[in-house]
C-alpha cells in the first residue's frame, strides 16, 4: 500500500493564503489615503496638491514593499493586518499634512512641518517590518531572549530620566544628528517578549502552586517575585518620568498576559486592586495627575486658568463641531487645540473634519486590528506565541482606548499617541515592528502543517488478519 495516510490532527488541508485578498485591500487602503490627500489640497488651496503624486507613490511603494515581503516571507500571515495599518498610516499622513497647512501653526515660532518626516519614519517602520519578517524566521526564537529583553526594556525605560523633560514628561531621549526618540514605544514590544517568555515557563507554578487566601489564589513569592519587581520598577520609573499613559499600558498588558497564562480570574481582581491602589497613590502625590483629573471632571471649569483643562475643552469642542458628517478635511478648526494637535490630539481633527462617521470608521479599523491580533493568539499553537500575540494586541487595544478615551473625555487624559495616525517617529516605527511580529505569529499559526514524511515503517507494517 503506497497510500499516504494522514495521521496528524492538524490537517494538511491547503489553507488559502489570502495574499490576493491582502493586495486588493492594500490598493483600497492606498486609494482612500490618496483621496484624503487630494481632498485636503482641494479644500485648502482649491487645487490638487503638488506633492500628491509623490505622496501617493510613496505610500503605494510602502504598502507594496510590505505586501511583497509578506508574500515572500510570511505567505500565510493574516491578510487584514497590513492593509489596516497602511490605511491608518496613510490617513494619518494626510491629516498631518493638513495640520501642517494651518496658518495658526505657521504663525508659531516652534512650528515645523511634520508630514514629510512622518513619511520618512513610515518608510523606516515598513523597513523594520521587512527586517522582522526576514530575520525572524520563527517567533519562538524570541523566547531565548527572555531575560535579555528584560534588561533592554529596563534600560530603555530608565534612559529618558537623564534627558530634560519635554512638555512635562520625561519620555524622550535626544541623540544629536538623529533627533529625539521615545524609547517607551519600543520598550512596549520588548517587555511583551519578556512577559511572554517568563510566563510561559512559570505559568503552571503561578496557576497551581498557590495558597488559597480569602477565596483568592495567592502565588508563591519566588514565582511572582521577578515579574512583580520588573513591573513595579517600570511603573515607578514611568511615574517618575510622569508618563502616565505608558504606566497604564504596561500594567494593563501585564494583567492581561498573566490572566491568559494562568487562566485564573483572581488575577484580574488582583490587577484591579493594585491598579486602584496605584492610581490613588500616584494621584495623591503628582500635581500633574491631579490636574489631569480635574480637567477630566469638568473641562470647561479651568478655562483660562489651566492649560490642561483648556486643551481638553478645546478637544471636546472640536469633536462637537464635527457633528455627524464632519466639516470635511481641511475645513475645520481643530488646530485651535494647539501644539499637540498632530500627535496626542490627532483624533480631534478626525472628529471635527471627518465627523462621527469618520470617527466610527477609524475606531472600527483599530478594533479590527486588535481582533485580528487576538485571533492570531487563538490560532497560535505554542503558548509563547499565544502570550506574545495577546500581549501585543492587548497593549495595542489599551493604547487606543487610553488615547481615544482621553481626548474624548471618557477617561482622564494621559498623553500617548494614537498608533499609526499620530505624528511621531518612534511610535510609527515601533508599531510597524509590532505588526511585523503579529504577522510572523499569524503566519506560523495559519501555515498548514507539513505533510508528514512518508514513514519508512508504514509499508513494513502488516495488518494481521485472522
Amino acid at each position, binding site marked *: 500500500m503506497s497510500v499516504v495516510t494522514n495521521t496528524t490532527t492538524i490537517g494538511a488541508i491547503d489553507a488559502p493564503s489570502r495574499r490576493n485578498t491582502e493586495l486588493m485591500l492594500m490598493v483600497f487602503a492606498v486609494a482612500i489615503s490618496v483621496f484624503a490627500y487630494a481632498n485636503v489640497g482641494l479644500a485648502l488651496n482649491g487645487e490638487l496638491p503638488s506633492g500628491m503624486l509623490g505622496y501617493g507613490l510613496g505610500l503605494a511603494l510602502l504598502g507594496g514593499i510590505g505586501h511583497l515581503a509578506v508574500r515572500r516571507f510570511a505567505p500565510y500571515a493574516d491578510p487584514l493586518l497590513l492593509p489596516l495599518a497602511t490605511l491608518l498610516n496613510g490617513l494619518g499622513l494626510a491629516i498631518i499634512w493638513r495640520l501642517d497647512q494651518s*496658518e*495658526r501653526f505657521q504663525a508659531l515660532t516652534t512650528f515645523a512641518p511634520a508630514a514629510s518626516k512622518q513619511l520618512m519614519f513610515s518608510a523606516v517602520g515598513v523597513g523594520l517590518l521587512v527586517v522582522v519578517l526576514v530575520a525572524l524566521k520563527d517567533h519562538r526564537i524570541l523566547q531565548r531572549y527572555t531575560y535579555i529583553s528584560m534588561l533592554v526594556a529596563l534600560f530603555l525605560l530608565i534612559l529618558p530620566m537623564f534627558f530634560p523633560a519635554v512638555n512635562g514628561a520625561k519620555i524622550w531621549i535626544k541623540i544629536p544628528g538623529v533627533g529625539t526618540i521615545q524609547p517607551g514605544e519600543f520598550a512596549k514590544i520588548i517587555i511583551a517578549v519578556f512577559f511572554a517568555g517568563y510566563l510561559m515557563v512559570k505559568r503552571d507554578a503561578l496557576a497551581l502552586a498557590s495558597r488559597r487566601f480569602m477565596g483568592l489564589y495567592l502565588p508563591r513569592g519566588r514565582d511572582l517575585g521577578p515579574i512583580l519587581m520588573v513591573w513595579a520598577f517600570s511603573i515607578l520609573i514611568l511615574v517618575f518620568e510622569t508618563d502616565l499613559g505608558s504606566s497604564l499600558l504596561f500594567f494593563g498588558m501585564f494583567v492581561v498576559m498573566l490572566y491568559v497564562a494562568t487562566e485564573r480570574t483572581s488575577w484580574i481582581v488582583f490587577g484591579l486592586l493594585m491598579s486602584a491602589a496605584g492610581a490613588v497613590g500616584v494621584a495623591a502625590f503628582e500635581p500633574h495627575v491631579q490636574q489631569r483629573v480635574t480637567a477630566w471632571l469638568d473641562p470647561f471649569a479651568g478655562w483660562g486658568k489651566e492649560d490642561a483643562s483648556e486643551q481638553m475643552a478645546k478637544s471636546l469642542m472640536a*469633536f*462637537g463641531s464635527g457633528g455627524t458628517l464632519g466639516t470635511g478635511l481641511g475645513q475645520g478648526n481643530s488646530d485651535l487645540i494647539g501644539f499637540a494637535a498632530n500627535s496626542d490630539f490627532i483624533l480631534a481633527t478626525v472628529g471635527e473634519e471627518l465627523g462621527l462617521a469618520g*470617527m466610527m470608521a477609524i475606531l*472600527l479599523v*483599530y478594533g479590527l486590528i486588535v481582533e485580528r491580533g487576538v485571533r492570531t493568539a487563538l490560532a497560535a499553537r505554542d*503558548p509563547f506565541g499565544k502570550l506574545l500575540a495577546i500581549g501585543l494586541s492587548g497593549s495595542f487595544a*489599551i493604547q487606543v482606548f487610553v488615547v481615544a478615551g482621553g481626548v*474624548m473625555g471618557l477617561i482622564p487624559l494621559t498623553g500617548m499617541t494614537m498608533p499609526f495616525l499620530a505624528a511621531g517617529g518612534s511610535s510609527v516605527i515601533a508599531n510597524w515592528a509590532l505588526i511585523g511580529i503579529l504577522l510572523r505569529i499569524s503566519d506560523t499559526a495559519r501555515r498548514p502543517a507539513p505533510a508528514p514524511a512518508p514513514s519508512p515503517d508504514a509499508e513494513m507494517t502488516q495488518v494481521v488478519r485472522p
Partner: protein
Amino acid sequence: MNKPLRRIAIFCGLLVLALLVRVNWLQYVRADELNGNEHNRRVQIERYAHERGNIIVDGKPVTGSVETTGSDFKYKRVWKNGPMWAPVTGYSSQAFDASQLESLEDGILTGNSDQLFFDRTLSLFTGEKKTGGNIVTTLNGAAQKAAFKGLGNKKGAVAAIDPQTGAILALVSTPSYDPSAFAGNSLKDAEARQQLLKDKDKPMLNRALRETYPPGSTFKVVTAAAALENGLYKGIDDKTDSPLPWRLPLTTGNLENEGNIPCENASLREALRWSCNTVFGKISDDLGNQKMIDEANKFGFNEEIFTPVRADASIYPKDNRPQNAMAGIGQASNRATPLQMAMVAAAVANDGKLMQPYMVAQRQAPNLDVIYTHEKEQFSQPLSGENAQKLQQMMETVVKNGTGTNALIDGVTVGGKTGTAQHGLNNSENPYAWFISYAKTDSGSPVAVAVVVEDSQANRDDISGGGLAAPIARDVMKAVIDSKK
C-alpha cells in the same frame, strides 16, 4: 489558554464599544451644546468667515465688509460715515461683539437666521458663496445729514419720525464715534475702544434713545393734551383760570415764568405761545397726578420702546402735588428721551394717532428677496382728532409768532414747541435746549422731530430751545420735505 483569550477578545470589543458609544454621545447628543459653548472660537470664526450683509439707507448701504489678514477672522465690518450712522447701526466688532441693529439683526446680517433656511438650502446646491442678508432701514439720508450737521460739535441728539407711519427718519447723537475704529481684533482696536469708553463726553452713548433729559417746556404739549382730553378747557382761545402769581400747592413759593410774559388767565393758545409755567403748572395740578400719568403713558411714557433697538423708558413720575405741578411743565423728575418727544409731536401731527416707531422697513435674503416687510401699526391714541387739531393750531401759533419762529419754513405749515430744561442741583448747570416740531403739507404731516442740545460751552443766557434747537429741527424737516419732492 483559549478560554481567557476569548474573554480578552470580548474585553477588547467592549473597549472599542465604549469608545463608539462615547463618540456618538459627544458628536451627536452633545454637539449642539458644544458648538454653542461661549469659549468656542469657531462661533466667531464662522461669524466673520463670510461677507456680512449690509444696513441700507435710501437704497444704498451705509456699511460694508472688507477682507482682513493676520487673524482667523476673514471679514471685518466697515461703515461709511460711521459717526453719523453709529446711533442707527450700532457696532459689530470682531473682538467686542455687536450692538443695536448690528446685534439685533445679526441672524439676517450673517445669513444664519432661520428665516433664511430655504435660501441657505438652495445655495447648498448651487454652491454659491455664503453671504449675509440686508437690513433696509426707514432712515432718510438727507434728514440724518442735516441733523448731524446741525448738531455739529455740540452735544445733543435728534430723533425724527414720519408721523403717519412711525418710520424713524433720523437718529443722531453727538459727539459720536466711528464703529470702524474698533471693528477688528487688533491691539489698536482695543486701544481705540478703551479711548472711547474713557471719554467723559460718552461718545458711545446713543443719546437719541438711551439718554433721558428733563423735557422742559416741550412737555407742555402733553399737559395741554391732557387738559383738552379731560375737558378741563374746551376752547383753546377761552380764558383759563390762571392767577398770577400762582402759588405752588402746599408750598410757600410761587411758580415763576421766564420773564415778564402775559400769562394771567391766558388762553391755552397764548399760554403755549409764551410758554407760561403758571398756566401749565396749574393745569397739571388741577388734573392731578393720576390723570397726568395716564395721558403721558398714552404718548409712550413709562415703558421701553423697541424700534427694534431699545429706547429707555421715559418717566412721568408718580409724585406729590407740588412735584406733579412741576412735572407738568417738564421739570422735577419728569424725564424723556428725544425719541419720546418726537413721538409726542408726531401724535399731535397725525391727528392724535400715535404710530409705533420703527426703523427696519425690510429684511432681505442674500439674493435680495424680501423676507419681511414692516406693517405700520398704531401705538395708541393719546388724543382725539378734534383735540389734536386744536393742539396743532396752538403749536403752529408758537412757530408763527411765538418762541419758535426759527423753525419757520417757507410754504410749509410748521408746528412746534421750544423748551429750556433746567438741570443740576439748584439749577446750577447749563440748561438743555429742546425743540419739538412737525411739518405739514397737503397730504398730512411727513415729519415730526425732536432736538435736544446739551451745550455746556454756550453762554447761559443764549441757551433757549428756540435759539439753539429750532434751526436744527427746521433743517431736518426741510430735508425730509425736499427729498419727497
